[in-house]
């Protein structure tokens, strides 16, 4: 790699260094904006004992669900189990260590991790199981709990367009957790639909500045839709 050219040749290089027992923070909400090819590669690598931080865990046969099914994940930090039957089963049976985290707290923990804020107070979760064992402190006459931030060995991110330097923009609601995840990886890998030369993206409208990104790769995406809902004309 010369200078700021962060393009990698293939997915093997994109995820080089990922090992058993590591932590991975992933962008995406449901199946929207998930780094599906990076996940597929992690599946193919067969690494095990992973701690995965992601709002959801895909579905049974797509996204992070495929890692779950093959028991590559030891621990999940997520806000929503939803209709992922295998996730719920492994959680209820105790096979999987799960830290259910309110969605906004999860987003803020990841953002804070990337921003060098080790901990913050929030009213979210006070007086609920989420607050158990956490320090409670009053601010403005209201109890808040102390939440610690999250960083990970790898961040896997799905962008729309990136330049070779790793400046990234996201498309529509595929943005979601991706920009926060991009800041919180020791090594941040971004896969995009289109890789462009530096200078093609408007500097005023970069969602993820290049400084957070270590590797970028262009690929094709299935972009599966979880709940196709339409109106008639």
């Amino acid at each position, binding site marked *: 790699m010369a200078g700021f050219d962060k393009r990698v040749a293939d997915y093997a290089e994109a995820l080089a260094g990922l090992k058993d027992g590591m932590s991975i923070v992933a962008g995406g*909400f*449901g*199946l*929207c*904006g998930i780094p599906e090819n990076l996940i597929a590669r992690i599946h193919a690598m067969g690494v095990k004992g992973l701690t995965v931080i992601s*709002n959801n865990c895909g579905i049974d046969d797509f996204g992070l669900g495929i890692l779950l099914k093959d028991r590559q994940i030891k621990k999940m930090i*997520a*806000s*929503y*189990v*939803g209709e992922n039957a295998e996730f*719920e089963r492994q*959680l*209820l049976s105790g096979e999987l260590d799960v830290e*259910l985290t*309110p*969605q*906004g*707290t*999860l*987003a*803020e923990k*990841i*953002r804070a991790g990337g921003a060098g804020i080790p901990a913050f107070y*929030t*009213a*979210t*979760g*006070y*007086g*609920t*199981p*989420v607050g158990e064992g956490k320090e409670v402190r009053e601010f403005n006459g209201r109890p808040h709990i102390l939440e610690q931030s999250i960083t990970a060995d790898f961040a896997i991110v799905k962008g*729309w367009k990136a330049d070779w330097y790793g400046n990234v923009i996201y*498309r*529509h*609601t*595929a*943005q*979601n*957790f*991706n*920009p*926060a995840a991009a800041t919180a990886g020791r090594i941040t890998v971004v896969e995009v639909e289109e890789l462009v030369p530096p200078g093609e993206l408007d500097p005023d409208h970069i*969602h993820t500045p290049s400084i957070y990104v270590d590797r970028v790769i262009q690929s094709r995406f299935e*972009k*599966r*839709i*979880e*709940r*196709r*809902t*339409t*109106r*008639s*004309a």
Partner: protein
Amino acid sequence: MALTREQMAERVGRELRDGDYVNLGIGIPTLVANYIPANIEVMLQSENGLLGMGPFPLDSEVDADMINAGKQTVTARTGASIFSSPESFAMIRGGHVDLTVLGAFEVDVEGNIASWMVPGKLVKGMGGAMDLVAGANNIIVTMAHAAKNGESKLLSRCTLPLTGRGCIRRVLTDLAYLEIENGAFVLRERAPGVTVDEIRSRTEGRLVVPAQVPEMKF
């Protein structure tokens, strides 16, 4: 007669004010979008990162990159904005959303709400609900008044793990519209044809019945 899901959504719609930024949860709350009074404008926030949610797309408009918090495909209305999850919850946690409508398993007279798990049986996860109840200034819970076996869901104390403590002030059930005040459910309106006695028999938490309890009109 108990309200239909559509009537519940319609009744909640009457609480909307012109210029409100509103977050609608999954289920009945989602239907409220169909009952925004004609003379006002509201902007719907979807916590996955969309402010200004529009209708579902036409078949030709479906876009995998455009979904709502219920993972349904949606569109954006004119004047919408799209942003990251931390930004979305900055809005929510920071109290910028005017009104939140969400479902629940149980609420109680202290304003506690339980909506995300039944120990040993069911775990949906809290998603954004804990943030919404902690952050919104104004919350309306929509839920069935009682379970199918008749057991009340309006309790003196929630039995399930909580989503939030002391944060609920308004509840719309299929039988009634109630406000939570001073440790009691205050019965404000009845569903058409539903008697005070019936509501009383299905409300486990303390119920206060004012002299006048008007029937809802549809």
